[in-house]
C-alpha cells in the first residue's frame, strides 16, 4: 500500500479537482479586483486588460491604512495581555490541588460556554460610562477578558503534563516563585504558547461583532469594520470592493505562507492540549 499505483493517480486527480473547487472563489476575487469598471464581461472570463487602479482607489477611499494600523495595535495589545495573564493564572491552577484552586478553575471554565452576546450589551453600557467606546482600548480590554477561559484551559492542560522537578530545583537554588515561573516554567510553555498565540491572534484579528458594537460611528476602525463600511458605501462597485477585500486578505496570507507549519500545527495543537 506504499506504492504509487493507478488508483493513487485517480485519487490524486480527484483531490486536485477538489482543491480547484476550493480555489475557485479566490480566482474570481482576484479576477474582478484587477478588472476595469467598464469591463462588463462574465465574472469567470479572464480579465483581458488588467489594472491596479482599483487597489490605490480602495486604499485611499476606504482609509484602509489607518484601519490596518488599528487592527495591528488591537491584535498585538490583546494577545500580549491574554497570554501573560492566562499563563500566570494557569500555573497555580495546574499545580495547587487545594479547593480554592479547583473552584477558580471551574469558574473560569464557565466562560467557555457563556456566549458573549449575553455580556455584550450590559458591557456596552459600562464601556460608554467609562468613555472607552470608539477607542481601541475598549477592544483590548474586552479581548483580554474574553479569551482568558480558553487560553487558561490550554495552559492548564499543558502544564499538568509537565513534570514539576525543574521548578522544584529552581526553588531549592533560591529562586522566588515568580522567578521560577519566569525563568523555568515559561520557557517550557513555548509549544502551547505558539498554539495560544496563533488561535488568539486569528480570533482577534478576524472578529467583526465586537468592533461593530464598540467602535461603530467612531473614526477609529479595525479592518473588518472598515471593510463592512466600505461595502455599504460602494454598494454595487464590486471591482473596487474586491480590491479592498484583496488588500485585507494579503497581510493574513503573507503571515500564513511564511509561518504555515507553525500555524497549522497551532490549530491542530488544540488536539493535544
Amino acid at each position, binding site marked *: 500500500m506504499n506504492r504509487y499505483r493507478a488508483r493513487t493517480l485517480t485519487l490524486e486527480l480527484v483531490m486536485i479537482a477538489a482543491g480547484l473547487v476550493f480555489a475557485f472563489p479566490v480566482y474570481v476575487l482576484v479576477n474582478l479586483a484587477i478588472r476595469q469598471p467598464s469591463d462588463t464581461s462574465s465574472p469567470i472570463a479572464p480579465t483581458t486588460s488588467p489594472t491596479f487602479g482599483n487597489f490605490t482607489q480602495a486604499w485611499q477611499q476606504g482609509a484602509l491604512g489607518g484601519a490596518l494600523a488599528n487592527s495591528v495595535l488591537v491584535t498585538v495589545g490583546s494577545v500580549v495581555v491574554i497570554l501573560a495573564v492566562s499563563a500566570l493564572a494557569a500555573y497555580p491552577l495546574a499545580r495547587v490541588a487545594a479547593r480554592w484552586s479547583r473552584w477558580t478553575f471551574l469558574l473560569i471554565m464557565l466562560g467557555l460556554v457563556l456566549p458573549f452576546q449575553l455580556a455584550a450589551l450590559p458591557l456596552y453600557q459600562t464601556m460608554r460610562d467609562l468613555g472607552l467606546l470608539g477607542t481601541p482600548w475598549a477592544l483590548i480590554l474586552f479581548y*483580554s477578558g474574553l479569551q482568558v477561559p480558553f487560553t487558561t484551559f490550554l495552559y492548564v492542560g499543558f502544564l499538568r503534563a509537565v513534570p514539576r522537578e525543574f521548578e522544584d530545583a529552581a526553588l531549592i537554588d533560591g529562586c522566588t516563585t515568580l522567578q521560577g515561573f519566569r525563568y523555568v516554567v515559561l520557557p517550557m510553555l513555548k509549544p502551547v504558547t505558539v498554539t495560544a498565540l496563533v488561535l488568539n491572534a486569528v480570533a482577534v484579528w478576524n472578529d467583526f461583532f465586537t468592533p461593530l458594537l464598540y467602535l461603530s460611528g467612531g473614526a477609529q476602525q479595525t479592518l473588518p469594520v472598515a471593510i463592512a463600511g466600505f461595502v455599504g458605501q460602494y454598494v454595487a462597485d464590486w471591482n473596487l470592493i474586491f480590491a479592498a477585500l484583496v488588500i485585507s486578505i494579503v497581510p493574513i496570507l503573507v503571515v500564513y505562507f511564511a509561518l504555515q507549519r507553525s500555524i497549522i500545527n497551532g490549530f491542530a495543537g488544540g488536539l493535544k492540549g
Partner: protein
Amino acid sequence: MTVAIKDRHADVGAAPPSRRRGGTSRRAVPWWFTVPALLLFAFVVLVPSARGVYYAFTDWDGLSPDFSWIGFGNFADMVDDPAATQAIWHTLVIAVAITVLQNGLGLLLALGVNTIIKSRNVLRVFLFAPALVTPIVSAYLWRNILGPDGAVNSLLGTVGLGSWRQDWLGDPDLALWSVVGVIVWQYAGYSMVIFLAGLQAVPREIHEAAAIDGAGAVRRFWSVTRPLLAPAFTINLMLSIIGGLKLFDQVYALTGGGPGHATDTLSTLIYKDAFTLGEFGYSIALALVLTVIVSVASTGQYLGLSRAERAAS
C-alpha cells in the same frame, strides 16, 4: 528555606512522583497569580453576564435609567414573535447542517491528503487557507459569487446547465443553505487539519497488519482508524456546533438575515433588536435563550463524546 532543604532530602531518596504529590513540604504556588486573569474575566464576562440575566426580565431600552421588572414577559413575547421562533429554528438547523457537512467533508479531505499522493503538502496548505480569511471578507466575496449575475450562475451557464441558475441568496428557500455552503467552504479545511493530526497518530503498521489480515479499506477505516480518531471528533464537533450556534458575521454580510427573516439567526436578531429597534431587554432575553442552547449542546456533547472516547480506547 527550610522547606526547600527538606525537599532536597526527599529527593535524595528518589521518591516516585506519586508519593511526592500532595506533600505538604513543598512551597505552594501563590494564589495571587490568578488575580489579573480573574479581574479581567470578571469585568468582561462574569459581571456583564450576570447583569444580562437580570436585564432579560426587564423592559430596559438600553439608555434610560428607568425600566421595570416584567418577569417572563420577554419570553412570552418570544413565543408570539415569528422572527424569534424562526431565528431559533434557523440557528439549530445551521448548527446541525454545518456540523455534519463540514466535518464529513473535512474527514474525506483528511483521508485523501493522508496518503502518498504527490500534491498532499500543497493541498493541505491551500485547503486550510480559507479558515484564516476574515469571515466577513469571505462572506462579501461569496455575496457577489452567489448573486444573480455572479460566478456560480455564469459557470452553470457556461457548462450548459443554465436551467440550474438560481438567486442563491435572494430565494427564501435557498438562502439558508447558501449560508451553510459558504461556511462549509471556509471551515472544511480547519476540520481536515484536526482530523489529519489525529490520523497521523495512527501507526502505519496497524493498517498494514489489518490489510494483511484481509481487511478492506472501508473495514480498516471503521475498525482501526475511526476509534483512534475519537479525540479529533470531540474537538471538531465541539468547534463546529458552538461556532454554528453563535453564527453572526457570515449571515450579516451575506444576507443581513433576509430575505425577510429567512436567514436570521439568534445572533443577528439579537443585534437588530438591540441596535436598530432599541429593545435591549428583549434582545438580552434572546441572548439568554442562546446561552441555554449553547450550554446544553456543549455539555451534552462533552458527556456523550467523552463516553464514546472512553469506549473507543
